[in-house]
């Protein structure tokens, strides 16, 4: 329960709230500051991971290239994957959720503000350890770190495992915090059926985090024991397949950790810019829960070619196909949401619409991969690389951008420039598809992943892909310029520039340190666009009113 917090202390290293940039480098218990810290950290690692990708694609632009080969190349693709997943996507989504969820539910802060700050700094520590592992060298077995190789390489792999172990706890504490916050700190009148869908997605995400991440922690701990103490859990004399089971038990649900908040963002953005209520609110909310639970029962589809018990493959194929259904429900609900709507093509909306299209492509290649015979043919090929980038970049990253363009005004008080935003969008869209569309073909034709060169017949497709990667790299520039310019000179946003109905938009931009001056009382759901509620159709209808003062309840 939120007690009264003192405003930012000057000079101390534990503060609450920010009155200067220095407060962002302290152990700050304000969820808005923590959210900003996570988002900034995430973007820094996005750039680092992105540079690694550029290096990889530069090497792969011509067959027989000698720019980056051997061990360094292995490290690059391993750290690229690890950084993008654990230090970009998960932190940036955690950051957006940290900032937005308490505001959406009408709370003063998260349930455990100090734990929240600890989570952030653990993530930072993990990030530093991860960079150290790259410098030391030896983390060469991909982000999935299969033994025996991962137990035979240099010390960087030990640092890698340690870094992930630390990051895992950051994540677990964060998930715990979100669940308790959403269960217990909702404003009066905000029943679960009036909860905004982004917050619903965080319930589902947090359940996955709590259920899955500890198993990764266990696996990493045992890998560390193998490497440092000399046990034989996963070594050649032990059971290397055990690693794969424990690793994928987390890492498959992890992809749902990475997409569900993205789904939540899309569910917030579409109704606002189509000016229509969300279609199928309950279906979207419940399908998130279904994905969370079912997502734990598909993991061995990453192991179809591992030598696993053949009898177990078919059940996992079935579950992997069934899990597409709840996501399909969402896609149809979103399409029905914008159908007949009055669409405003803001940058945020462009990213959201593109998300739907690109994610469907990625989802379809996923269904192909769920089929055992197809998977046997394309496992560990560029078909998988294409699939994962369509869902993670075409999906999650575009959702992140949709969310950032949407909530930047709330977070900073200023509007982002729409012109620069659209340039960013289109260059991203073109670059992304140029990079990853050819990779489907490469995989089907037999090009394996995680290789630093290839036979000449794959040259053209690889060249196109590398050009696309270069274009994607350029796309970052208008985005960065937009942020820097808008922070200083962007148009003042006011409380509700998009005329949205969720609670965060009832506060000034940026919100005051203690969020709501009076506890709001929620009287309806947040998607009532276009409903006849008063004689002033242009105004968003109130979904909350201040609590009655004086007198009992």
């Amino acid at each position: 329960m939120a007690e009264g917090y003192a405003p930012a202390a000057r000079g101390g290293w534990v503060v609450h709230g920010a009155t200067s940039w220095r407060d962002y480098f302290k152990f700050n218990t304000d969820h808005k500051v923590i959210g900003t810290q996570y988002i900034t950290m995430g973007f820094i690692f996005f750039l680092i991971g992105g540079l690694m990708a550029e290096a990889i694609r530069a090497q792969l632009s011509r067959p027989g290239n000698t720019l980056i080969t051997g061990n360094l190349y292995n490290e690059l693709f391993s750290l690229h994957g690890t950084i993008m997943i654990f230090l970009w996507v998960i932190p940036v989504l955690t950051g957006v959720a940290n900032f937005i969820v308490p505001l959406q539910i009408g709370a003063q802060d998260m349930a455990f503000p100090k734990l929240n700050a600890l989570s952030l700094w653990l993530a930072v520590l993990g990030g530093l350890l991860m960079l150290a592992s790259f410098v030391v060298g030896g983390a060469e077995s991909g982000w999935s770190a299969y033994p025996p190789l991962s137990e035979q390489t240099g010390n960087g792999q030990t640092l890698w495992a340690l870094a992930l172990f630390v990051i895992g706890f950051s994540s677990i504490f964060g998930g715990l915090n979100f669940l308790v916050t959403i269960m217990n700190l909702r404003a009066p009148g905000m029943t679960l059926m009036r909860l905004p869908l982004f917050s619903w997605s965080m319930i589902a995400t947090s359940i996955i985090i709590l259920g899955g991440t500890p198993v990764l922690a266990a696996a990493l701990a045992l890998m560390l024991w193998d490497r440092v103490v000399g046990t034989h859990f996963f070594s050649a004399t032990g059971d290397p397949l055990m690693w794969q089971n424990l690793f994928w038990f987390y890492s498959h649900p992890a992809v749902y950790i990475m997409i569900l908040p993205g789904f939540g963002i899309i569910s917030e953005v579409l109704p606002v810019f189509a000016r229509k209520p969300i279609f199928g609110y309950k279906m979207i909310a419940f399908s998130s829960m279904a994905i969370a639970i079912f997502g734990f029962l598909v993991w061995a589809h990453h192991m179809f070619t591992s030598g696993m018990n053949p009898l177990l493959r078919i059940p996992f194929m079935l579950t992997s196909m069934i899990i597409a259904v709840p996501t399909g429900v969402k896609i149809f609900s979103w399409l029905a949401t914008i159908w007949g709507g009055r669409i405003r093509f803001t940058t945020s909306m462009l990213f959201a619409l593109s998300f739907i299209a690109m994610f469907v492509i990625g989802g379809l290649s996923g269904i192909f991969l769920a089929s055992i015979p197809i998977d046997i043919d394309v496992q560990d090929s560029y078909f998988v690389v294409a699939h994962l980038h369509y869902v993670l970049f075409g999906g999650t990253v575009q959702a992140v951008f949709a969310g950032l363009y949407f909530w930047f005004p709330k977070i900073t008080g200023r509007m982002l420039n729409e012109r620069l935003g659209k340039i960013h969008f289109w260059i991203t869209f073109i670059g992304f598809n140029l990079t990853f569309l050819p990779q489907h073909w490469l995989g089907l034709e037999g090009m394996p992943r995680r290789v630093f060169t290839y036979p000449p017949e794959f040259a053209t497709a690889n060249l196109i892909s590398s050009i696309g990667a270069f274009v994607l790299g350029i796309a970052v520039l208008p985005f960065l310029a937009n942020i820097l310019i808008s922070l200083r000179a962007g148009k003042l946003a006011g409380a509700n520039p998009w005329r949205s109905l969720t609670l965060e938009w009832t506060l000034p931009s940026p919100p005051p340190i203690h969020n709501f001056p009076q506890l709001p009382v929620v009287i309806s759901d947040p998607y009532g666009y276009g409903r006849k509620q008063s004689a002033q159709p242009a105004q968003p209808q109130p979904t909350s009113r201040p609590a009655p003062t004086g007198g009992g309840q």
Partner: protein
Amino acid sequence: MEEPTPSVAHRRPNYLLVFVALALMTGLEVIIATLPGFPKAPFLLTMSLIKALLVLFYFMHLETDSRWYRLIFFSPFIFVIAILFVVRLQ
């Protein structure tokens, strides 16, 4: 902050009785484990399950507290069993 639930003191379990049961069962387990011959596993596993449930329901108040706590604590076991099942079969 006061808990608006009925006072736990009214429905406090007999902790000493639970303790005695736990101690006796532990002794029994050790004796059974050292006896040769018959299959000990079902007996020992059941004993430890009962002991665990005694601590969970009486010491940790799962019997009398909100059903949410039972849901939260017992849900993960399905997944633990799934892992054990897959690992055993491999």
